[in-house]
């Protein structure tokens, strides 16, 4: 939701389908493909692919960007666990604001209410 809000502020349209990994390019986000490949590699088990993704990101964006990207990937890998282990629902205002792209990307299949 904040990805779209960021784009609206700057009059840019991001391809939200990029969050599913189904976009070959950057999805409208500068270095988006490299960032997605880095996130996928960090959460994956292929250390060679991770080293390649890390090197590509650092070459393109520099060491500070790599540090920040690793921090965000780590933090959201944790936040997802807090959300899924405590069974929190989406807040009503977030649910309303994200309804269209949740439907378009079929994200509601991840809802905790469907897992009991």
């Amino acid at each position, binding site marked *: 939701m*904040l*990805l779209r*809000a*960021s784009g609206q*502020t*700057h009059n*840019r349209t*991001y391809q939200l389908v*990029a*969050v*599913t*990994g189904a976009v070959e390019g950057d999805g409208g*986000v*500068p*270095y*988006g493909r490299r*960032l*997605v490949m*880095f*996130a*996928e590699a*960090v*959460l994956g088990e292929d250390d060679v692919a*991770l*080293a390649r993704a*890390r090197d590509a990101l650092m070459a393109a*964006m*520099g060491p*500070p*960007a*790599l*540090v*920040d*990207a*690793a*921090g*965000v*990937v*780590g*933090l*959201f890998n*944790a*936040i*997802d*666990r*807090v*959300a*899924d*282990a*405590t*069974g*929190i*629902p*989406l807040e009503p205002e977030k649910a309303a604001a994200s309804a269209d792209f949740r439907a378009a990307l079929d*994200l509601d299949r*991840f*809802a*905790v209410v469907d*897992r*009991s």
Partner: protein
Amino acid sequence: MRTDPGRLGERWYRSVIARDLTEEQYVEIVSVVAHTVAIDTMARGLGLDAPPLPDPEPGLPSHYRPAGAKPGGAWVPWVEPADAGAAEAGIYPNERPPANIMKAMSLVPDEVRSFFDLVTHQYLPGAVMRDFSREYRAISHAQIELLAARVSALNRCLY
């Protein structure tokens, strides 16, 4: 919780609470897992070894449970801002209602404080998450949110 959080369900949670743990113990375990996952995943991203766990410190668990905790929208009870006592001071922002992710671990207030300290350092302080007028890190808001959303999709997490 560590290896496949997308499979967790309320029936499983209820069975754990009925059989093995208090709700506060469960929430504290969630927090310990979340802290270590955040730090260890960042280390993996940077090609570093996971930092060693700190040495245990002497002392007894407080067994504190906020008097204002009650069932809300989650599986675990939580503390609404209006029900927060002195021991819960400062766990929520003053200027806006807390997101559910902040209330999720409020059964153990110190875990909210500690985890959101990590949030501030590895993501953004709450006050600037929606300030798109400037950038605060070496990567932009859009780049941050793309990473966050891709990680959540990989973890099959709707929230």
